[in-house]
């Protein structure tokens, strides 16, 4: 039996996501993608438990690879998003005489 609370959380989060993301201008669609990528690195919370729970050697190794992959997304994702967003600048205002 799937816990229905979790289904509520999923549906509401997807709804909020949809509402927020429709308002992101096409200008920032690439940073949006890299941002959601970085955020999806949250699968670390599952990977860390698998790597550290010491259940079976198999799950520890799988957990280690999962931690590595998720960390790549977290570190690389946030850095590259920041690098991109840093580049977006307005027309400099002409200095008032």
């Amino acid at each position, binding site marked *: 039996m799937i816990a229905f609370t979790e289904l509520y959380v999923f549906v509401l989060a997807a709804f909020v996501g949809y509402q927020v993301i429709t308002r992101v201008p096409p200008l920032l669609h690439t940073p949006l993608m890299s941002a959601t990528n970085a955020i999806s690195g949250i699968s670390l919370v599952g990977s*860390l438990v698998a790597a550290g729970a010491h259940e079976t050697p198999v799950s520890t190794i799988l957990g280690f690879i999962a931690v590595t*992959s998720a960390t790549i997304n977290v570190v690389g994702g946030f850095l590259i998003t920041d690098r991109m967003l840093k580049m977006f600048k307005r027309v400099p205002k002409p200095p008032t005489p």
Partner: protein
Amino acid sequence: MPVRDIFIEATYLAASVMFILGLRSLTRPEFARRGMQQAAIGMVLAIVGTLVKHEIVEYQWIVAGLALGTLIGYPLGMFVPMTAMPQRIAISHMFGAVAATLVGVATYYNSGGVLGHGEMTALGFEVMFGSLTITGSLMATLKLAELMPGRPITFRGQNAVNLTLFAVTFGIFIYLIARPDQTMFFYGMIAMGLVIGMSMVLPIGGADMPVVVSLLNSYAGLASAATGFAIGNNVLIIAGALDGASGFLLSVLMSKAMNRSFSNVLFGAFGSVVKSTRTLATGQSYTPVSAEDAALRLAYAGRVIIVPGYGMAVAQSQHVVRELAELIEHRGGDVKYAIHPVAGRMPGHMNVLLAEADVPYDRLYDMEQINGEFDKTDVVLVIGANDVVNPAARTDPGSPIYGMPILNVDRARSVIVMKRSMNPGFAGIENELFYDPKTSMLFGDAKASLTKLVSEVKNV
């Protein structure tokens, strides 16, 4: 509830809120950077919260994984050039999917197949979305990085094969929900997922990549959300849902910008068989122009619109473009950039490249914003764009791109098209715009031509 658990849940809640606020900050370029930095803090909080969980008894593998991931992630974040962004994003979908799939496998392996039907459903979604995203993203990355031919790879009966694969996998999934202890079926389903990911992306050509990359983004998110269901973790469900919604929305927008349905992108193999009912009269002539003449026209133009396409990215010429635009502005001309939603190989690709070249973002205009302005424009400079400016999308019902919204470049007073040669573009569709009497063709490598234009405009 012990204090430790309250702390853990508090970090997850804080992280969820910061993620949503971070994404919301992307609606305004001036707030985006700070918002995403806050989201990164949310991520750190969630990691710290997880590390104090009582299930975690040893740390050596965790530390090793975090260290190795940082070692690989840092250069992927700091040193990948903006032109390589599409393949960079595609490969990160793969990493996300690897993490989700392996956590799913570990959970299943430890359970020994003793699972409730609900848990099995969540795990099934997790490894299915995960595995097809792994190979799908890998294929997309190889195609985008041109380590593999970018054209669609097709064979007879491909759609039938793909549909059969889907049906068989779905059957296995249903059986597994009924009988979670059937280990072989679990691993069989992962193998099928890997095959589906590959066969799904192989027939898709380069120009359709924006849709595929967005779709894989969505799948990677859904795999994360399913992980959250499987291990009962809300922050995973929320982050996965955000990711899934974002990818879904982007793929819908991209499909719309090409006037094509999802299924058409996935099963259509655009570019493999292209037949227009109306072929251009052979011997129709076009007007070549020298860089000197083109420069003169640009130098004396009052209103100029630049239309960048994938060709600009390939030639890495965005910096020279900006230099040219500044020269024209310096002479009193007005320069705007018109960005088609599917210009380039991923959503927003052109905006990032131009921003990198220090083009202010208020000079970049979306299709709807700028389409009304072409008839007031003296010169439109098309740099390596083709299908997105093809009037056949409006006029020729037999054309494969008929109905696709395009930039109305043909309504400008004059057009200069920069192109390597008269070869039709990626999709292999002839473009009448090139034969229009008011269009001049400037042949050659985009960067070399632009550099020439810059020095000629300086001399005017």
